[in-house]
């Protein structure tokens, strides 16, 4: 096996395209997962069974089926009903939706961890429901779960190559295309492995710093 530096430099422009797609999928997917997970978690606590039950069924279903199957469904089956998204948008929705069912569990644990006395104090002060959630419960709950949420961001990063299967050319997709054309798989695949570490490790350091700041 020979290492060919010229293949590395030939791969660079495509790598940049791939990194951009990976980061877009990661950032947008995380935002969806964080926001939607919170909606799930709060809906599951609803006193109205017509809300809490369907949400529970949907989230259990999504969590217990493979992301890959969900991506295929979104990309190949939804167009049957004339719902069509680009590969990247499909990937973002798929990642975000799938991971929202995990973040929902994280939020749930965080909300359950807020002492019951906090709810009682809110009642005693007659704070409205919305204010109770936004000013008292969620700030305390989210603080506790930042580290756990961070872990899922890293996990999403590592699942992002699945987007290749629906044609969103993130890093692995670019590497595969490049090696198919040049018959040089070693350089592009090695390079993207390094880039994954270069994204993931600082991200986990950032999460740890956030954790130190928030959890005290």
């Amino acid at each position: 096996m020979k290492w060919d530096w010229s293949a590395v430099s030939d791969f660079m422009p495509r790598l940049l395209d791939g990194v951009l797609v990976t980061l877009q999928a990661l950032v947008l997917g995380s935002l969806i997962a964080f926001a939607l997970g919170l909606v799930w978690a709060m809906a599951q606590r609803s006193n109205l069974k017509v809300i809490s039950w369907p949400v529970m069924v949907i989230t259990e279903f999504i969590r217990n089926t493979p992301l890959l199957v969900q991506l295929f469904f979104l990309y190949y089956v939804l167009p049957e009903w004339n719902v069509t998204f680009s590969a990247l948008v499909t990937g973002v929705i798929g990642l975000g939706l799938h991971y929202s069912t995990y973040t929902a569990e994280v939020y749930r644990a965080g909300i359950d961890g807020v002492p019951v006395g906090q709810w009682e104090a809110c009642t005693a002060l007659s704070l409205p429901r919305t204010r109770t959630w936004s000013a008292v419960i969620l700030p305390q709950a989210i603080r506790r779960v930042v580290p756990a949420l961070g872990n899922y961001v890293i996990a999403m990063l590592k699942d992002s190559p699945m987007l290749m299967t629906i044609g969103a050319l993130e890093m692995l997709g670019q590497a595969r295309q490049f090696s198919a054309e040049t018959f040089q798989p070693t350089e592009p695949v090695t390079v993207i492995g390094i880039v994954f570490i270069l994204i993931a490790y600082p991200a986990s350091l950032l999460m740890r710093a956030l954790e130190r700041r928030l959890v005290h």
Partner: protein
Amino acid sequence: MSTDSSTSKETRNPAVDGTELIEFKDVTKRFGNNVVLDNLCFNVDSGKHVTLIGPSGSGKTTILRLLMTLVKPEEGTIKVAGDYLTHEQRDGKLVPASERHSREVRKNIGMVFQQFNLFPNMRVLRNITEAPVHVLGLPKDEAEQRARELLELVGLTEHIDKYPSQLSGGQQQRVAIARALAMRPQVLLLDEVTSALDPELVAGVLDVLRDIAHTTDITMLCVTHEMNFARDISDDVLMFDAGRVIESGSPEKIFSDPEHERTREFLSAVL
């Protein structure tokens, strides 16, 4: 103040003269098969300081929690300042109260908890201004002015910008008292407010409460094991046992010459 746990009188007295601030009528509360309050009737007049004493599990704290609508009674009605708390009148009938109705009536009541329950994510000042701003709709500067006055009353002016975790238990409890008073409630409920404190911090909290009891016309309903404090501030003492008021009267009477054997036993155990 009067107690009556015998029969349910047919009282349809709509004449609220403003003196009966709290009225429990035939209130029964069960947790499973355990009857915590048994057909309880009692009134608290406006401006009075009433202390509930009795062994653990006798239902004292449940009364405060009923008033805060943290638990709901199985039977009976509770009125606060002339309004039904757990019920509301609709088309001349008494139906379970909506959350909105309960919230309105509850605004007359403030509560201080055994475990303080301050909001750890807010500084002292915002702990006190949060509800006045977002429930009463007070302008922020007015709420902060009120908070500063109350912090002075409880002797914590210099801690205004701290987080609860930076304060001692006694200081936290005094902030909690200020937070409850900031809503200008007519009734203050005190639920074993010194039980979670280190012994040397108890006096500071009780001094603040004594001060409030003697200088304001707020009505107090107090569950405590501090019998000296109860003697100091109470107009009336109610002795509870097994979900009933077994004896009531002035603190002098209850503490020095109790009639009931059970009261004597209890007092000799705690004094």
